């Protein structure tokens, strides 16, 4: 056997081992999710007594879906969630990338101060801000109950982390020479950023987009504080009618959960491509 063949065989074996490890991890990690899928097609009594059974004593049922949709006014809250998530995510992506750019490339005092405060702010427990936040914006300024207020607040809260992620990406992966070349070619800083730097940040943009979109889509506490008018409810606030202190209709919760997570899953699969494709093509130019 030649050196090459042996190496090829070894590579193959490594691949297979890796694949098996992945599969085991995959089953472990997906198991609870499978539980959700199995149980959504059962009645409450069956979910509780035979959670592992594929089909319960009372038979296969799809009733949980229409019932959940009706109870939570699905399409209305879905629309609200969509507007709010999309707007907040786009705003966060643009603003935090800009912010990170100026913070990485300059050693001004204001930059250091802002960045330090942002990092520190990521560890403030939300409960600390909850009551002061509503006292200020509700009690004093009376601007609660607008989608825009929630969008701006979402953006404000997520800016720190998004900036932090962009900061790392710009710092490590964007060659300074690239920008200098652009500046020499006559671009302004603003143009350099949008034409040269931002496209190179695509993998980070995709990552931040998923993380933030998911956080906004699933957030309960902040929207519940800001949006008290029922016509503005988002999906997580609407599903709370299924949670009770004394009785929890788990079938409806699972149905709502599955319907709610679908858009994010699609977004994730879609953005995956950009995470893969991203910088590899851009970096060649550099």
């Amino acid at each position, binding site marked *: 056997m030649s050196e090459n063949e042996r190496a090829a065989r070894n590579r193959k074996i490594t691949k297979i081992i890796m694949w098996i490890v992945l599969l085991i991890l995959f089953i472990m990690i997906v198991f609870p999710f499978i539980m959700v899928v199995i149980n959504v097609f059962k009645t*409450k009594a069956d979910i509780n007594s035979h959670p592992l059974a594929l089909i319960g004593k009372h038979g296969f049922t799809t009733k949980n879906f229409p019932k959940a949709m009706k109870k939570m006014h699905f399409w209305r809250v879905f629309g609200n969630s969509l507007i709010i998530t999309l707007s907040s995510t*786009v705003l966060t992506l643009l603003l935090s990338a800009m912010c990170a750019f100026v913070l990485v490339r300059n050693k001004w005092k204001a930059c250091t101060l802002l960045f330090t405060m942002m990092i520190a702010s990521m560890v403030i427990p939300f409960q600390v801000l909850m009551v002061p936040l509503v006292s200020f914006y509700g009690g004093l300024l009376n601007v609660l109950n607008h989608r825009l207020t929630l969008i701006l607040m979402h953006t404000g809260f997520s800016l720190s982390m998004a900036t932090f992620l962009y900061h790392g990406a710009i710092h490590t992966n964007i060659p300074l020479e690239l920008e200098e070349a652009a500046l020499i070619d006559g671009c302004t800083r603003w143009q350099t950023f949008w034409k040269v730097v931002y496209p190179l940040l695509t993998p980070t943009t995709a990552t931040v987009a998923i993380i933030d979109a998911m956080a906004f889509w699933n957030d309960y506490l902040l929207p519940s504080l800001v949006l008290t008018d029922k016509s503005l409810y988002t999906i997580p606030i609407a599903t*709370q*009618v299924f949670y009770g202190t004394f009785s929890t209709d788990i079938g409806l919760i699972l149905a709502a959960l599955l319907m709610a997570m679908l858009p994010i899953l699609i977004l994730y699969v879609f953005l995956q491509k950009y995470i893969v494709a991203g910088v590899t093509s851009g970096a060649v130019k550099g």
Partner: protein
Amino acid sequence: MRRRTAAVMATILVATLGATPVLADELSVFNSKSEIEEQMEDMASDYSDENDVDMEVYYSQDTVAAHLSTKYASKDPYVLSMVDAKDIYSLGPDHALDLSDQPWVKDSSQIISIDGKVMGFPVCIEARGVIYNADAIKKITGEDFDPASVKTLDDFDALCQKLVDGGMEAPTGIMKEDWSLAAHYLQEVYEEREDPSAFIKGLHDGTVDLAKDEKFNSLMDTFDVLMKYNYAKDAPIAAERETTEQKLAEGEIAFMFGGNWDWSVINAYDYSENMGMMPVPQNTDDGSNEKLVGGGSKYFFIDNSVSEDLQKQAEDWLNWLVNTDDGKDFLVNTCALVPAFKTNTLDVSDPLGKSVKSYADDDKLIANYNYDPDDHYSVCGASMQKYLAGEIDRAELAKEVEAYWQGATLADPAVTGGAAAGTEAATEAE
């Protein structure tokens, strides 16, 4: 890029600015009883159509106190809020409207007054005791089950043994939740005596020796028997509430300490026909083993800062609930609650509620003690859980409960001084 960005931003702004602000004349109702949320919403939409008001019902997953504090912080209170008795005492003086002039005041013994002003409107009556599954018992003993036959602990122990001998693996279940153990069960140690306030003060001052207290020992003796026959004896702390209730509903176990609110859980399963509630069996002759413990549960108060027009609408709705046929029907038949007003004579539909109603009608309810400090259920609940798990014995449990009360800040007006409030509390607790 820049143009595209600007276009996106502009779209967002247009899309979001279209949002309408809340209507200031909405009759908002906060409902903290999740099991009737759907019924409340349907009622609100019918009621709004018929009475030309804009009634909207809200519910929150958050605790009542946390939720209302954010609402008050944003100066956007509900017109009507449904809260627990203790919340009326904390919120009432600042935020509740005086309802003393309302016609329903004379028709209930469960109304809450503070400083001579009526502030809390009782939504329903709820009581605690032992829930039994008569069908499951009959299946083994062959005889109809008469709850009056197991008044004493000895009778109860004998019956459980008989069930075990007859093939029922474990006749009892115990909810391990801290609120059930401390706020509902241990609570009866304070309530089943002449003067709960004095007893609490004694605990606080360290003059009560709990380990030697007759009532404490009597109730803990019963708890020991419940533990002895517990289906989850091996891992009592892992027992899930839904599972325990399902076992009770389907007759796998026969007894569980609980309250009539448990019906909303039980009725989701294939429940047995004949179920009911009975007093906690005890070897005592003080009469407490013939009574359930309970009274008014969940109270409405009207916010005093909203417009007079809204206050009037809220008062009208409360009157509708008490005095019209529709309102009575809604409370009893639609929501399956036990009415707290004597003007409402409709028959209660669920079996546990029926038991509670009959004890209430016979004047066999021992009153709730509503002045526990807010952390009582959590701290003492942890001690009760340790006892349930066999981590500590009865003497240690008594020590921990005593230590809790000695360090607690009392909230009972009868103890803390307020003379006027004290008499008020006494009359209200009847």
